[in-house]
């Protein structure tokens, strides 16, 4: 009975997973394909010069016409994490709390599987759902080499890993809140709000002076906000993101053990 619950949940989410992946492929391909039209347009760099806070709000920092600057501003600092978080927070909130509200959670909690095992299976499904969008984006960017958009492979793998881990972190947060409260709405709300706040901190920190120290508190900083596309994912980045995931997973197990399943 290896990971039957993981397989079941992935099957139930198949359609949205495919939809989001197809969407990001189209979007990422367009971003890559129009790069040649912008790469010599230095006026574009005026937009982010001298620390424009509005540009930073949308994730654009630094020169936009370099390959890394272009990909950060259009993909990795905003859209790719957003889509991955939509998937993982949505699943994290539905995996325990949402299925309990639907009444289907009792189907699996009355099978001979421990609650710890169920959470482990759900975390595996969560991890797998963070992969397709991140991986598809990476493949599109690799195609971008043909459009003069060359970034280091190490950086590309690093930022892709960062996005996956970021998705797991916030998905695990939604899972843990759902396990503690039994409410999909609460899990969705708190996790989305936390993600939005962390995104703002990480994006605005480079231009808003007093926010600068706060960026260390945002998982976005360790995934996409600290030049990962240029230099790869550092061991520190990986350790921080993995530690957050582990702590939230343990909390989810502890909370689910106490949850009354309907």
């Amino acid at each position, binding site marked *: *009975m290896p990971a*039957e*619950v993981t397989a*079941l949940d992935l*099957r*139930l989410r198949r359609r949205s997973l495919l939809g989001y992946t197809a969407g990001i492929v189209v979007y990422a391909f367009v971003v890559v394909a129009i790069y040649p039209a912008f790469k010599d347009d230095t006026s574009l760099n005026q937009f982010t010069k001298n620390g424009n806070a509005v540009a930073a709000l949308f994730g654009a920092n630094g020169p936009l016409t370099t390959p890394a600057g272009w990909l950060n501003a259009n993909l990795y600092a905003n859209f790719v994490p957003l889509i991955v978080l939509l998937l993982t927070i949505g699943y994290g909130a539905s995996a325990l709390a949402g299925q309990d509200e*639907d*009444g*289907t959670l*009792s*189907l*699996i*909690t*009355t*099978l*001979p*599987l*421990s*609650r710890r095992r169920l959470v482990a299976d759900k975390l595996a499904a969560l991890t797998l759902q963070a992969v397709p969008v991140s991986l598809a984006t990476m493949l599109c960017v690799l195609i971008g080499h043909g459009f003069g958009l060359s970034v280091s492979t190490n950086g590309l793998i690093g930022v892709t890993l960062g996005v996956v881990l970021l998705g797991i972190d916030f998905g695990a947060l939604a899972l843990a809140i759902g396990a503690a409260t039994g409410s999909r709405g609460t899990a969705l709300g708190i996790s989305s709000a936390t993600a939005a706040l962390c995104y703002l901190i990480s994006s605005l920190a480079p231009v808003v002076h007093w926010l600068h120290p706060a960026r260390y508190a945002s998982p976005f900083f360790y995934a996409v906000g600290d030049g990962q596309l240029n230099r790869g994912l550092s061991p520190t980045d990986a350790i921080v993101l993995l530690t957050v995931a582990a702590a939230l997973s343990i909390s989810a197990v502890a909370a689910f053990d*106490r949850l*009354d*399943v*309907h």
Partner: protein
Amino acid sequence: MSVVIEVEGLSKTFGNVRAVSDVGFTVTAGEVFGFLGPNGAGKSTTIRLLLGLYHATSGRVSVLGRDPTRDVVAIHRRVGYLPGELALYPKLTGRQHLDFAARVRGEVDHAYRDRLVDRFSAELDRPVRTLSKGNRQKIGLVLAFMHRPDLLILDEPTAGLDPLLQEEFARLVRETVAEGRTVFLSSHELDEVQRVVDRLAIIKDGKIVVTDTVEGLRRAAPRTVEFTFAHPIDPAAFAELDGVHVLSSADGRVRLALTGPAGPALRVAADLDALDVTARSADLDELFLTYYREHPTEREVRDAR
């Protein structure tokens, strides 16, 4: 007789609401135990406590010799459960549900499962969301029975089934206990209980009001006797008898509920020159309804019997 379910002093509180309170009963191997009560009485809450889905506020539960708060996996391996409000995955077919459960359980006799599917003529190849409540219920029943569990815990099992399938269900239950396995079922339908149950407990407002065999309850159930007289009479003569309750009295007709011997009432009727008498035998429905409607204290319950 080995004990399959043992419950003692079981209570469960949600916030300030006491869903069940000091519930206790014992179910032995090879019997069909009915758990009866009106909607919202605490039947499903008790069942979820037996299965370790809920955590008890206080009290002791043992299922198949194990504690559901500690050994829940071992219990689930040997139990088949049908939830009261069965929710399946809307997008999946019945077959996908059965295959999933079989893969997780790992020890399913597929021939037996197919026989069950045939007996209930369950529709397996359409997405569950397109099925009627009765057709979903059939899938739930196959899910509960297919691994030949030692104990079946069924919450309102025949809800939505037509009379033919209810009869088929009753046969399946009898076969199951004939093999020495045990069935615990909740219901608010008296018919179902009279048809399949050996022993039962009635729960009302979270408390057990009576536990007995169906035969024992039948003996205690009130008989209805109606006398017809030539003239209007005063029913007080009947009302003061022990074990007699005047149901109605008008135009020389008196309807009585008898729980004691018939002699005294017959003597009073004879003295009043009764013209006619009709009697209806023990009526379980009437007895259940008294338990459902009122809040009988222990003393009233004893008096009623």
